[in-house]
């Protein structure tokens, strides 16, 4: 099969189609894609200008003769008629906005409410519909109301019926028979060409036919009144015709002639009806194509000199089907199988004229008696355009080449320009001026292509970037999630990406504030790029709020390379007060917004007119939990020199400290004089053995142990490094709220606990005048020890045999204290005096509880 390369320009892409139809109207192209829309595409601006939305899917549509109304046949609804805005009026609007105008067609525009209508045609102010009713094909003729009056009443004028016959289709085409039900009848209106209609040009978009053939096919009566003829190809392959503007006739004998007559039977669903091969008096062939590739050509044989009357012959030819759609121009038939677009020349070009003289002779011969159509001698030419689903009427470009408008199944609107036959021959004989023009055109073409290529490259680049980003994000996610998984088992090594937090005090304008310094450490092999955000959620246990409160701080990362650290500072105090302990959750958050290039974001918002933020509204983020830290009193101590203990104000009396304690608990108390006493103290005793193993200081001396324990408590490290502030086992520090406190450790031997003998324990003593500080520190120390106990290996030298009696005493003591506590908490019924007494009692009880003699081993 001969193949021709043609210039294919993709005007637009509409996505995959179900079915398609395309009509060209000047620069505008009307097309439907099988959905419930008809799109009006502007060929010059190359964009969809208007979207006409119907209530149900559009089966077919057509423009009225004056091109100012659009008729659309919708599934189950019937026929709609809507005015189409003129090009000029919509132009000013479109200049401003590039968004296609959407107009919804209401059901009020339905003109024929008949869901059974399968196809229709609008001709000469008459609407012809074809519907299948029971076992009849019913043709109905409606008179269109006058456009100017605005009336919308369609008067039914006539109708006739044709019995449906069961199509005799061979078994192998059974699959097609199912289709043939859904194939709508093909309708065409054919006019006889007359002297005042220009040759070859369609009459208001309807094909013309030379008078002789017209007369032979459709009768003398029709020909005399120049009535157009409606041709209908039914899905069973029968071709029917009836004159549109002819009264019901009777023969001279009074018999009524049937209105509708059968012309031919193609025996396969009819896809297309048209006329072609323009002669002197108009198109000379009636061309009908069946769905399975059968082509019918009707042509006239003129009256012969041998006395033979003029008659017409029908010639059948078969091409490989299935034929999806077809169109004709002056001499060629273009048809699309689903695989390819083909052109079939209908006139014999093989007898190409060698001289102008003989050409004229051939032309004359052709015009008097056309030869048998060339379809027998020539095979179709492949145009190398695949999957064309719909074709509009071909038009001739100013340059003289044929231009087809096709809609492919993949939804592309293609402008196919066929090469001119004379291109090759005329190439060598180009005049110099034409050469210049030609070069110019070519350069222009190259420029266009380069522009397109670079824009596509750019697009590709953007997409690649996005993909790379996404890949990176997933890598990071994977790393962190893996680490979490390992956490469940045992996590020996440090997590690849982690966040540490240290509390620092800073004094600004004589005001102390506690600053949390978080350090994001990236030990992984992928860098954290822009788009990541470090979120730190600070969860403080404000006691007077039931569930505490949390504040989230977000820090957008610029770039954190492998091995780099990022330090961020954030305040911990709320309104100058710090509520410890503070729980800190760290997250790494990636917003999907960052995936898109800003340019693309702008583009997206233009196209879809929904802001991208709405697209990613709910889950536009990837959130990865890093670590959770807890800051307690110990972390927030300001270490002072131990000798400055003297600075610890001694004048603070119990009364004052109680007051402070109470005020810190946000309870209002009346000022009452209380007896003065020294600083309060609590003691926590931990067995030395436990500490030695827990802090991995085996066999160290007592002094070292004490210092180490203190370091471990205050700096969370037990290493014997050079920590300046701690040289001896006493640490004086200022806690939040400038509460002084003293921590001291010493190793003592306790007897009576262990049944085997004495037990050496490390006594951690916390002293402070402030009960708040005391409590906080006590709690913090216990927490640390708890954590140590959890981490400590289970086997540390066998169970220590404990003396039960001591334990019992201790428990009994605790129980009695608890009982007192319970008693004092009974609702007071004796008024205010009792309350004061109780407060002091409670405080005493509390201190006793703190002096727990129990040892943690």
């Amino acid at each position, binding site marked *: 099969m001969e193949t021709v390369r043609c210039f294919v320009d993709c005007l637009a892409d509409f996505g995959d189609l179900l079915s398609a139809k395309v009509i060209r109207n000047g620069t505008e192209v009307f097309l439907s894609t099988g959905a419930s829309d008809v799109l009006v595409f502007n060929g010059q601006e190359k964009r969809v200008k208007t979207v006409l939305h119907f209530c149900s899917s559009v089966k077919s549509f057509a423009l009225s003769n004056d091109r100012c109304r659009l008729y659309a046949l919708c599934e189950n609804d019937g026929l709609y008629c809507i005015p189409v805005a003129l090009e000029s009026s919509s132009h000013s609007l479109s200049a401003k906005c590039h968004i296609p105008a959407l107009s919804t067609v209401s059901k009020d525009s339905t003109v024929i409410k008949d869901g059974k209508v399968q196809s229709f045609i609008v001709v*000469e*102010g*008459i609407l012809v519909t074809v519907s299948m009713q029971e076992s009849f094909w019913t043709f109905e*003729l409606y*008179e269109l109301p006058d456009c100017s*009056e605005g*009336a919308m*009443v369609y*008067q039914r*004028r*006539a*109708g*006739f019926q044709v019995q449906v016959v069961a199509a005799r289709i061979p078994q192998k085409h059974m699959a097609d028979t199912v289709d043939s039900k859904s194939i709508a009848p093909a309708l065409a209106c054919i006019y006889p060409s007359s002297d005042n209609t220009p040759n070859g040009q369609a009459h208001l978009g309807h094909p013309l036919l030379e008078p*002789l053939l017209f*007369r*032979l*096919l459709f*009768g*003398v*009566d*029709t*020909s*005399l*009144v*120049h*009535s*157009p003829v409606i041709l209908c190809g039914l899905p069973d392959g029968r071709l029917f015709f009836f004159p*549109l*503007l*002819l*009264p*019901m*006739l*009777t*023969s*001279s*004998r*009074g018999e*009524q002639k*049937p*209105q509708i*007559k*059968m*012309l*031919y039977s193609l025996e396969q669903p009819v896809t297309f009806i048209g006329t072609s091969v323009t002669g002197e008096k108009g198109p000379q062939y009636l061309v009908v194509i069946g769905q399975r590739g059968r082509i019918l050509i*009707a042509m006239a044989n*003129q*009256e012969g000199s*041998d*006395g*033979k*009357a*003029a*008659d*017409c*012959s*029908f010639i059948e030819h078969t091409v490989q089907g299935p034929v999806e759609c077809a169109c004709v121009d002056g001499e060629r038939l273009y048809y699309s199988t689903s695989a390819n677009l083909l052109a079939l020349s209908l006139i014999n070009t093989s007898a190409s004229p060698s001289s102008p003289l003989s050409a004229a002779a051939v032309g004359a011969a052709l015009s008097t008696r056309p030869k048998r159509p060339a379809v027998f001698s020539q095979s179709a030419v492949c145009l190398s355009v695949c999957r064309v689903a719909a074709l509009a009427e071909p038009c001739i470009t100013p340059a003289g080449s044929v231009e087809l408008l096709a809609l492919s199944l993949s939804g592309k609107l293609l402008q196919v320009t066929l090469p001119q036959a004379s291109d090759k021959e005329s190439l060598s004989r180009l005049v110099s001026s034409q050469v210049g023009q030609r070069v110019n055109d070519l350069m222009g073409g190259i420029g266009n292509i380069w522009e397109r290529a670079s824009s596509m490259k750019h697009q590709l680049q953007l997409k690649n970037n996005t993909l790379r980003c996404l890949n990176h994000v997933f890598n990071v996610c994977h790393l962190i999630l893996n680490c979490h998984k390992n956490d469940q088992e045992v996590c020996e090594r440090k997590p690849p990406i982690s966040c540490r937090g240290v509390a620092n005090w800073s004094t600004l304008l004589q005001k102390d504030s506690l600053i949390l310094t978080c350090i994001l450490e990236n030990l992984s092999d992928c860098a954290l790029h822009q788009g990541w955000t470090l979120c730190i959620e600070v969860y403080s246990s404000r006691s007077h709020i039931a569930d505490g409160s949390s504040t989230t701080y977000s820090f957008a990362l610029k770039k954190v390379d492998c091995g780099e650290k990022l330090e961020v500072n954030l305040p911990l105090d709320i309104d100058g007060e710090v509520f410890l302990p503070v729980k800190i959750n760290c997250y790494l958050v990636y917003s999907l917004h960052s995936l898109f290039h800003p340019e693309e974001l702008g583009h997206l918002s233009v196209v879809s007119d929904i802001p991208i933020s709405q697209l990613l509204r709910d889950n536009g983020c990837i959130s990865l939990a890093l670590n959770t830290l807890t800051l307690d009193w110990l972390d927030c101590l300001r270490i002072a020199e131990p000798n400055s203990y003297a600075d610890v104000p001694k004048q603070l009396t119990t009364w004052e400290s109680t007051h402070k304690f109470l005020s810190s608990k946000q309870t209002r108390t009346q000022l009452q004089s209380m007896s003065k006493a020294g600083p309060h103290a609590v003691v926590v005793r931990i067995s030395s053995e436990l500490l030695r193993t827990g802090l991995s200081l085996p066999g160290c001396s007592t002094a070292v142990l004490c210092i180490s324990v203190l370091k471990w408590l205050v700096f969370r490290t037990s290493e014997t490094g050079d920590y300046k502030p701690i040289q001896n086992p006493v640490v004086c520090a200022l806690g939040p709220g400038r509460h002084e406190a003293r921590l001291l450790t010493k190793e003592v031997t306790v007897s009576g606990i262990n049944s085997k003998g004495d037990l050496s324990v490390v006594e951690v003593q916390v002293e402070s005048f402030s009960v708040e500080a005391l409590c906080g520190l006590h709690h913090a120390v216990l927490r640390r020890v708890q954590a140590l106990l959890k981490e400590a290996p289970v086997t540390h030298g066998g169970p220590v045999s404990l003396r039960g009696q001591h334990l019992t005493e201790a428990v009994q003591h605790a129980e009695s204290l608890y009982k007192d506590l319970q008693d004092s908490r009974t609702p007071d019924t004796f008024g205010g005096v009792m309350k004061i007494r109780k407060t002091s009692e409670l405080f005493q009880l509390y201190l006793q509880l703190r002096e727990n003699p129990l040892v943690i081993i």
Partner: protein
Amino acid sequence: MSVTSCLAERWIEESNTIIKKWKENEKLRGQLQDIKHCYAQCLKLHQKIQGVPAVRQQVELEFAVSYNTLLFSLTNSKPNEVNDRLTCCLIRALEAVGFPVHCSDQVTLWQTVLKTFNGKEHQTCIHKLLLIQWAIWLSQCQFEGILQLLQMINPKITPSGDLLAEIRNLTFSVKDDTSLLVAMAAEDLKGLLHICTFISKGLEKMKTGNYPEALQDFQEAGTLSSPRALLAHVHTLMGLCYAKLGRPQSALQCYRLALEVDFSCQRALYQSALVYKQLGNSHAEIEALRLLHSATLLHPERNSLSEPVPLISPDMLLGSEQMAFISQIPSPVHILHILGHTCVLNDRNSEGAECYLDLLASLQSHSTLHVKHGLPFPRIPMIYLEAAFAMLKAKRFWDGLAICEEVIAKTADLIPERLFLEPPMVTHQLTAPIELSARSLEPDPTKETLDRVLWSGSAYFLQGWAYLQLKDTKAALTNFTRAINQLVKVCFKQKSKPFLFSFFSDQMVMLETLKGQALTGRGLCFVERGQLMGALRDFQLSLQTSPGCSNTEMWLVEILWRLDRKEEAAAMWRQIKKCTDSSTSVDLPLYLQAWQEVAKYHGHSNLHKKMEAFIHSCGTTA
């Protein structure tokens, strides 16, 4: 309960608002859109009311709204839909009074409804809905149902079985409630139904040929008060019955009455034209046709948008089929053709020519869709030939020639050199498969080809005649010869001729007549040119093909006389005298009928004298 009554008040108010608005619109313009609008509103209200369970207290309101809605829906929906809606209303009414019924049969349902509501305060409301049922059944021509329905409410009288008698005896009250407005008073609807049922029944009888009884029905219908258009139809139908009963004068009287009542009653005008034709009053016939034609042009569509549309039109009640019968008139082109034909036949030549020109113009114009039902229309070439003939009669020879040329151009090349006429069965078997095309286009291709021969022959013949009138004997001779050449292309074996006549009777007669007349025409040309031998041959041939044409015979005698073959002339003369003039009764086309008068031998009396004298002298000499 208070809520429902409160709602009821609001609904009553809403209903009344809709109806008031409709009444205003009806007075102002009464357009279809208004009906649709009111219908939509009524339907909404109706749905609202049906949204609450049916209760006895609401029955009256519900019935009133249902009645209004159904009235509107009669014009807007199909009868079956209205019927379904009515059934729903009835079932709901029964539910309201605690008689739930589930039966689909309309008659049984009505029986139950009437029994349940008998003697109660809602009876009048029920009767209103009954009128709607009557209207639905009337539009579907279900007289049996109407009869049963009416018998149910006329229980006192013994059922007569005659619907019309039942209607006459109908005595039920349909008084309207003043608090609840209705779109159309029930009394009016009842009157309209009454008259329409009579008309419909009369039409049924007419269709079965029972004209006297039909006439009675129509007469009774005519006594009732009714809208103008309907009354005019009644008069027209009465006229039709009279015409069928052979009383043309009475028929004319009726048609006149109809036109007096409603001038736009075109059927009456058309029918009177037919009666005038029957009576031979061609002048009146032409006048009537002319009026009819101008009327059809002025009112192409009776129900045009500018005219007010009544809520319930008689057209709707009578059903489209009946209505089509009542107001059936030919399309404008038909009327124009009949008018032209009549004019030409009655020697009103210039009028006839104008009519034919108008006719051709309207056939050619692409703006009109010719209604494809109703009366048949002759073949277009025949119209052209008649038009050409009319032109010739009106002495517009060149126009006539041009029209003939058109026919020749369309037909001459489709005629084969030889057309063998054979009985159709044989023809089909013998045709080669190549000629499948010709066969598939025409059910009987031979007949069609024969027609074409006749058309082109006639066209040449008329052209020859035109040239003869123009004294261009040479051209006339050519055309008559062409006509003869066309006609002799038809061949048949002599022995199968009678057999063929049974198949192509009209065409064969026409072919022979035309051939004879063309030969006569050519003979006349020869006479004019003084070629008497040629004339003699043609006249003889003419008489051979179509014997009995007195004109030709006269001419033959004359030519024989001029050729000095007096004996033969005398013998011929005697023969003519002997056989009385027996003109062929076959329905010939206009141009062949009238031709006989045109080609008349004018020197009849002169020849008569000459021949009598010669015979006498011969007799004396003998």
